[in-house]
């Protein structure tokens, strides 16, 4: 029962990644692309946490933490660059 629900959740996350990558490819403006990257980061954080539960390993949560810190830096740096050149 619980495993089936988790599988369904995995499929939904899968589709969310497909949508965000489609927006990244279609683009139109640079801001759309960076926003898609931001969304993909948050989705990846929860995907890593979900996989940490499936594999039952605590250490994987550290990866999610590092991921959150550094990709946030990249998005803010890109936004500042767009605004006035770093």
């Amino acid at each position: 029962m619980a495993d089936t629900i988790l599988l369904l959740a995995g499929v939904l996350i899968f589709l969310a990644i497909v949508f965000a990558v489609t927006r990244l490819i279609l683009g139109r403006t640079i801001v759309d692309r960076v926003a898609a990257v931001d969304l993909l980061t948050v989705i990846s954080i929860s995907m890593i946490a979900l996989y940490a539960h499936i594999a039952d390993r605590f250490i994987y949560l550290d990866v999610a933490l590092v991921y959150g810190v550094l990709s946030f830096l990249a998005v803010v740096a890109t936004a500042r660059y767009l605004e006035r050149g770093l």
Partner: protein
Amino acid sequence: MLEMLVVLLCGSIIASAALAVRLDSVLAAAVSGGLATLFAAVCYVLLGAPDVAMTEASIGSGLSTLILLYAIRRTTEAKE
């Protein structure tokens, strides 16, 4: 399910890398190049290498995007 996710992530890596090559705007290319390494980091976690994933996430997405932005700014200043 795991194999499916790994295949999806590898496809996304290829898509964003191809996008980085094909885009006209240099800045958008830098962003999507950073995204390719972000996906690679998730791939490493799924394949059971958290230490490699941590390094890849910190250097690939954080540091190399910053250095690329710096380089873009320097080269556009030189051109003008």
